[in-house]
């Protein structure tokens, strides 16, 4: 649990009474691009620039051919703009200064500094977080590699992993999200540029939180990163992911894939604070965040926990899911999704129970304001072999203002008489009484909404690692700026 006293809360509120999207600046660095468009040549170019082995190029081309035969799904409760896939730059990398290949470009360091992401190890918050920073298409740096290597932990960019640990990558890549899984997973498999790779060996407890930070900088580009996390038997890791992008009028595409493999008795905690640029107050610009995240509890007793705070992006469309294959494995999904102005979100989770005595819990808190549309969509599936499996889901929606929408689309399927599933959902608004109570005590309407929303989302926020919890609380405040009165 994360303790916080009233003073902290007050400071946060004060800091953010005039909040706007702070991360919307552009960094002026020299960059390398591949030409706009998508075809086999582009994919070959990307693969060549990254000096990839043949099997990976084949994997990409195979995915691309699958993608060509697919159509963009239309079932979400989203007003998706037509995406011109030929009008996107699929690879943009900051140019390296050849004289100093070991050093990070000071401008890049500055960018991440501004974002509050420390790239120099001595600056890192008391040495508890290792960071992999991804700038457009490439990983800029990964901190604390040595400390981690002593324990046998591999934490590096995806490209390095392909070069240095090809066997591991090949063994696990696309085992949870196959390349033809869905439209955007296929696209990602064809053009993915970089991302993070993480391997925790047997019985190792990762001594620090691992973190990936994604930044879109270049205009007209898309970001397609791929994250692969493997927790071997009995290991533990806490993994965090954060994202930002500059403010632009155009919409930019972000289509990532995250795969997590949790072996016997291993424990993985995955936390996301998603703060991509949400577009302006009139719904212009913003990131299209269309992501496939899936983990598998492969061995018995495996545990995977998802925590997400979604405040950014013009459109968020993702369902972090868990396949509970090992007996006695467990998974949780905790989510806060905030939409304001013209933002749209269709997010939730899937829990597929295959093994015996598997357990899952879903807590989803949706908050919609302005003219936004916020949907929870989820699947809980009890397969015939899931003896004594158990699920509990709770999905609450909070409406702020009369022009937004809040929707809940859960699907429950049971093929096992011993499995128990419970689902519960409520929809409500911030009551006049609560606001009146705060106003009467001298708390302004916006601050009051912030307080109430933070209280409403506390159950989820308290699951976040400490650094993230503070950031997430601030974000909730900023995202709801101007939604009352």
């Amino acid at each position, binding site marked *: 649990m994360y303790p916080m006293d009233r003073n902290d809360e007050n400071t946060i509120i004060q800091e953010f009474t005039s909040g706007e999207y702070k991360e919307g600046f552009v960094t002026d660095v020299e960059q390398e691009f591949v030409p706009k468009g998508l075809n086999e040549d582009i994919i070959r170019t990307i693969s060549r620039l990254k000096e990839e082995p043949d099997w990976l190029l084949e994997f990409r081309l195979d995915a691309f051919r699958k993608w060509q035969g697919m159509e963009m*799904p*239309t*079932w979400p*409760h989203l*007003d998706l703009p037509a995406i011109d896939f030929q009008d996107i730059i699929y690879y943009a990398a900051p140019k390296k200064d050849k004289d100093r290949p070991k050093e990070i470009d000071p401008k890049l360091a500055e960018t991440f500094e501004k974002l509050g992401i420390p790239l120099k190890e001595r600056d890192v918050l008391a040495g508890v977080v290792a960071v992999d920073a991804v700038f457009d298409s490439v990983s800029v740096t990964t901190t604390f590699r040595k400390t981690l290597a002593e324990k046998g932990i591999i934490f590096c960019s995806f490209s390095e992993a392909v070069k240095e640990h090809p066997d591991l990558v090949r063994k696990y890549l696309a085992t949870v999200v196959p390349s033809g899984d*869905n439209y955007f997973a296929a696209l990602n498999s064809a053009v993915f540029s970089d991302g993070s790779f993480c391997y925790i060996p047997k019985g190792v407890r990762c001594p620090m939180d691992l973190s990936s930070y994604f930044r879109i900088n270049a205009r007209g580009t898309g970001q397609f990163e791929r994250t692969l996390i493997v927790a071997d038997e009995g290991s533990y890791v806490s993994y965090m992911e954060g994202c930002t992008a500059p403010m632009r009028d155009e919409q930019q595409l972000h289509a990532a894939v995250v795969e997590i493999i949790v072996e016997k008795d291993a424990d993985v905690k995955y936390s996301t604070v998603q703060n991509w640029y949400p577009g302006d107050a009139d719904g212009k610009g913003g990131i299209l965040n269309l992501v496939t995240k899936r983990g598998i509890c492969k061995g018995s007793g495996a545990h995977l926990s998802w925590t997400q705070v979604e405040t950014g992006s013009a459109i968020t469309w993702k369902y972090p899911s868990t396949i509970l294959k090992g007996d006695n494995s467990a998974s949780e999904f905790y989510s806060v999704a905030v939409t304001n102005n013209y933002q749209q979100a269709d997010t939730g989770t*899937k829990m597929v129970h295959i093994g015996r005595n598997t357990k899952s819990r879903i807590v989803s808190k949706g908050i919609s304001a302005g003219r936004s*549309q916020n949907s929870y*969509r989820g*699947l809980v599936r*009890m397969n*015939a072999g899931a003896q004594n499996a158990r699920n509990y889901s709770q999905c609450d*929606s909070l*409406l*702020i*203002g*009369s*022009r*937004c*929408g*809040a*929707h*809940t*689309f*859960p*699907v*429950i*399927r*049971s*093929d*096992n*008489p*011993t*499995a*128990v*599933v*419970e*689902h*519960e*959902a*409520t*929809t*409500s*608004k911030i009551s006049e009484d609560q606001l009146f109570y705060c106003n009467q005590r001298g708390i302004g309407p916006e601050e009051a909404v912030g307080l109430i929303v933070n209280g409403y989302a506390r159950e989820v926020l308290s699951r976040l690692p400490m650094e993230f919890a503070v950031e997430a609380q601030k974000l909730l405040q900023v995202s709801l700026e101007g939604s009352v009165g």
Partner: protein
Amino acid sequence: MGYGNYRDPFVGLRPPQDDKSVIPGGAKESYTVQAGEKLDLTFVVLPGESRDIDVAIDLVGEGAEVTLKGLYLCGGDERVRFRILMHHRSGGCVSHQLFNGIAGGSSRVTFDGRIIVAPDAQQTEAYQENHNILFSDQAHVETTPQLEIYADDVKCSHGATTGRLDEDALFYMRTRGVPVQEARVLQMLSFLSPVIPAGREEEVERAIRSL
């Protein structure tokens, strides 16, 4: 946003329905409930019946009130499907839904219920519940209670459960000399009692005993 269009939300989540899932003898009904009117409907599906029940209800005037209840008992290879659309087009209306059912044998039950609250349909109260008991390995239950809400001053909730009869309750009754068969019947009766229409208690009890 395509508000109010009945879009099938499960494509991609649900495998395409084969033709066998088309149930003969299906009923499609729609009702419009005006201001101040009350509508009270109960659906009863007894063992041996395959039914496809498709109901659309529009609440169009202030003070309209709708109560829907459903009961289903399947012990063989029945196919039962409910598709309920409760559309609150006007504010100040109340709707309650409660569907309880028991699935055994190789039956397949699908409950697909949706509440839509239109923009400006303020002071709406809409509740929906669907509870299922499975008592065989081959039975299959799929439930999708959905809320689509475009107004803020509303009280809406839904709940759905699937599970089995409470073993502790069974144990309690058995330690007090109630035979296991009888205890099961009592449990099922009490599970269904909120949705049994007045005057049909004995018929439902006979049906439970026939399972």
